[in-house]
């Protein structure tokens, strides 16, 4: 597989997993399992970091003049990354909120 394409898939796989974990954290909190919920967010952040590093590769290539061809796949990877970031903030807030309501 070509370089940029591979980086995109690494981003999508990592941040996609992270995003999924953030949503699972909300599900845990909804059931009153707050420790599990917070652990889920922490683990999600660790996986997200892998995607962030892959994304840095793209940025590095761009800055070094090795401009990646803009494809739908790159846009999708960026989109997934931003979505995961947003879900991290929301999941953290939701866990706190459920804790207030249920405890």
């Amino acid at each position, binding site marked *: 597989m070509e370089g940029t394409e591979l980086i995109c*898939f690494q981003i*999508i*796989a990592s941040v996609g*997993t992270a995003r999924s974990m953030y*949503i699972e954290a909300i599900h845990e909190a909804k059931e009153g399992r707050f420790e599990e919920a917070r652990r889920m967010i922490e683990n999600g952040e660790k996986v997200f970091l892998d995607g962030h590093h892959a994304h840095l590769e793209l940025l590095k290539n761009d800055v070094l003049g090795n401009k990646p061809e803009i494809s*739908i796949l790159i846009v999708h990877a960026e989109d997934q990354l931003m979505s995961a970031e947003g879900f991290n903030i929301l999941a953290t807030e939701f866990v706190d909120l459920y804790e207030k309501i249920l405890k």
Partner: protein
Amino acid sequence: MKNIVLICAAGMSTSLLVSKMLKYAKEKGYECEIAAYAAVDSARAIPTADIVLLGPQVKYSLAKFRTTYPTKKIELIDMMMYGMMDGKGVLDFAIKVLG
């Protein structure tokens, strides 16, 4: 012929994995249908599937899918395999689960 259904958030990145899996299936001589669907469109694909594979983006809906389709084989695609677009690894996994 086995019907393998892949599901991810938009059905887009998974489509590329499908093409890699189909290429490997052809080399291996394994007869199957493989297609990718978005999670929102999954209801039309799952009833006829022999196995459903979920992408890492929709891992959180595994329990929901298993509850909705209790008799279906529903599994997760390994994140590393997904990130490397390892069509061979994913197809071998599906064949193993199908038995």
